[in-house]
């Protein structure tokens, strides 16, 4: 009899405990899903911010789905097309996903605040012809730029090229260093169209014709492609990045840079926090201004935006969360802790402190901020163009084939033009 009584007591206590635990969940009437990728610590920071938001808004639960960047590029578009996507996601192809975006204006507390602080970047998230919608905000602004292993330069006894040094100056210098210290990668460039266009724009590539239509192959583009091609031939770049995989696959050289195998790595500001954490005291690294060419010293702007999607069933809750995250105080904390260049004009104007940044990271962020002032209008035009990813992917794929020795550069140029035309036509089929 005693055992029966204890069984009933245990069951009752268990039921009470379950109710107590489930109570708050049941009280939350709305659950939002946010898909998120991270380069550094931004996932941890966002988790903190979401906890605070949920503490202040008991009726809204937010599930943060942290995924690899590849899932954002490949899975998210399919999810959104099927109407089964998340309510909010952190994305880089803002123009490509603009047709799924939610215009949050009817639900935002103060749309004017958004226009004032995110205005120039909102165009990146809008479809062609749309000048008004507010689909999200920038979690970071990025600029491309090179990281240099200063210790390898010192070991080789080679002087660092100066601020206005050309690509040729850098190519010669890194090759000399690599030969002296036996580094396998004198110069590494992410296998990414976006990164390639930092070089192409600085070589004078215009990308668009007078009507604003893509005209990718011009003299500037050819100069840049020829440089990359020649650098591979001369052993300044290793085929392991651009030549070793097919199609549009992205390849970075983060691991190689961290392991002191790369003398100069052209990537971008988003890597700063990661290198500050992973390189530590292993060697001295610095960010340097973008090298110059016939078209100037421009880097490529870019960034990641947090976008809301129209398939959401809870637009009011989404807007409430976005209002919270985009507020100056919260977003300022986010940029500061993640070491990101602010994509909020008000915060950028006031300036931002990075108390957690190491001296190397702080110096790198200073260089990138200065680089942002040199971005050419063409670079902004490419970034804001809705089909820019089509151009980027065609370039990676075809240039990769030429570098691997499958085709000539001339053949690659023809294919790039054909791919861009065909894919834009396919996208426009309704």
């Amino acid at each position, binding site marked *: 009899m005693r055992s029966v009584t204890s069984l009933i007591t245990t069951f009752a206590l268990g039921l009470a405990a379950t109710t107590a635990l489930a109570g708050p969940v049941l009280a939350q009437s709305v659950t939002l899903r946010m898909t998120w990728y991270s380069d550094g610590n931004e996932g941890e920071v966002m988790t903190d911010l979401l906890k605070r938001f949920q503490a202040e808004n008991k009726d809204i639960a937010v599930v943060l789905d942290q995924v690899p960047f590849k899932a954002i*590029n*490949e*899975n998210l*578009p*399919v999810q959104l*097309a*099927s109407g089964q996507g998340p309510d909010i996601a952190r994305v880089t*192809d803002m123009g*490509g996903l603009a047709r799924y975006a939610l215009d949050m204006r009817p639900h935002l507390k103060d749309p004017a605040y958004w226009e004032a602080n995110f205005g120039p970047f909102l165009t990146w998230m809008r479809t062609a012809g749309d000048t008004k919608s507010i689909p999200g905000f920038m979690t970071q602004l990025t600029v491309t730029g090179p990281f240099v292993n200063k210790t390898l330069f010192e070991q080789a006894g080679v002087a660092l090229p100066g601020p206005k040094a050309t690509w040729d100056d850098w190519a010669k210098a890194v090759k000399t260093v690599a030969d002296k210290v036996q580094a*396998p990668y004198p110069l590494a460039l992410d296998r990414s169209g976006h990164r390639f266009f930092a070089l192409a724009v600085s070589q004078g590539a215009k990308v668009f014709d007078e009507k604003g239509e893509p005209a990718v192959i011009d003299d500037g583009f050819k100069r840049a492609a020829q440089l990359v091609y020649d650098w591979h031939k001369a052993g300044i770049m*290793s*085929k*392991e990045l651009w*030549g*070793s*995989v*097919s*199609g*549009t*696959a992205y390849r970075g050289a983060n691991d190689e840079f961290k392991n002191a195998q790369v003398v100069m790595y052209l990537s971008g500001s988003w890597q700063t926090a990661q290198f500050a954490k992973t390189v530590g005291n292993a060697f001295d690294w610095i960010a340097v201004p973008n090298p110059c060419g016939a078209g100037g010293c421009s880097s490529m702007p870019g960034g990641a935006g947090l976008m809301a999607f129209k398939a959401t069933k809870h637009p009011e809750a989404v807007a409430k969360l976005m209002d919270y995250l985009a507020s100056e105080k919260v977003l300022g904390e986010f940029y500061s802790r993640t070491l990101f260049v602010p994509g909020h004009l008000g915060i950028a104007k006031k300036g931002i402190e990075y108390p957690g940044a190491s001296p190397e990271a702080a110096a790198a962020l200073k260089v990138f901020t200065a680089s942002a002032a040199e971005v050419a209008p063409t670079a902004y035009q490419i970034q804001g163009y809705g089909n820019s*990813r*089509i151009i*980027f*992917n065609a370039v990676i*794929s075809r240039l*990769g*084939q030429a*570098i*691997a*020795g*499958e*085709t000539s550069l001339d*053949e690659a140029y023809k*294919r790039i033009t*054909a791919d861009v035309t065909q*894919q*834009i036509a*396919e*996208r*426009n*089929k*309704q």
Partner: protein
Amino acid sequence: MSDGSSRPPGRPSAGTARVPASARWRDRAAGLAGLPVALALRLLDPLMAAVQRLIGAGRMPYVFLFPNFVFFGLFVFLPIGINLVFSVTGGPALFPSERPFVGAEQYAYLFDCGSYLDPSSCREDHFWRGVSNTAVFVLFQVGTMVLVSLLTALVLNRPIRGRGFFRAVYFFPVLLSPVVVALIWKWILQRDGLLNAAITSLGGQKILFFVDPSWAMFWAVFVSVWAHMGFYTLILLAGLQAIPSDLYEAAEMDRTPRWRILWRITLPLLWPNMIVVIVLSLIKGVQTFDEVFVLTGGGPGTATLMVVQYIYETAFANQVQNFGLAAAASVVLGLVLFALTLAQLAATRMKER
């Protein structure tokens, strides 16, 4: 009428065999466990009887096939149908109702070639590079696979010490996920991998295996054979063990040379199993994707880009997710696989005969 002839055939009489107690309990337990099923069947009896009266006893098998057919239709025929619809429509939309009809445009685009033997003369050159690479891969992979599996089976069929252990060792890679297999080999083969460490420790130069097209294809074939040969070895081993031993005894009594025994007895009698192995490895080879994709990424350039990787990238990895073109390529691949499957069925029938 109390003699054994009135009992069902095969059941022993009470006097001829004593059933052990454990078996009796097992039968009772089985009977109890089967009770709900028996009850359900009894409840279904009137319904089934009514159906039988309605359609006739001759059509009853179709009634029993129907539930399976529904699942098969849902998960096989419906996707095939959707794929066909996608292949005759265009645009980036996901729902067929939102996709404009383009007829055979996707197929025409795929097959627009100056010469099918020269991928660079084709508008969709990546597809034809995939076809060409897959053909080369299948040729070398199937040839090597059959040869290595046959040799391994012949060795493992002999009474060698530790035979069971070796059989397990050769079969073990079959149990691994293809992605795991590819990652293991990638770590071995990369610039700072185990193989290059061994080469440099012997005084050699590092080889960048994934930058050279010939090396990349070689390792794609090698890893595939390493991963799957255990399965085909088992099939051939089963075939070897089915060959009657008296044939070998007779040959030995006639002092027939070993190579002649192999040529005149073993290989002809193993041929049906060989056909199954060839056709199965052909089908698997044409479908190759995950291992090669993880190992080489389809590179260098497009040197190891296979058809299935092309389909995957066209549909999902490219920025304009071209479902229509990918679906058309899938249909073409499906037809090739269908032909190979028919060949496999024919081979299986030949084996049964």
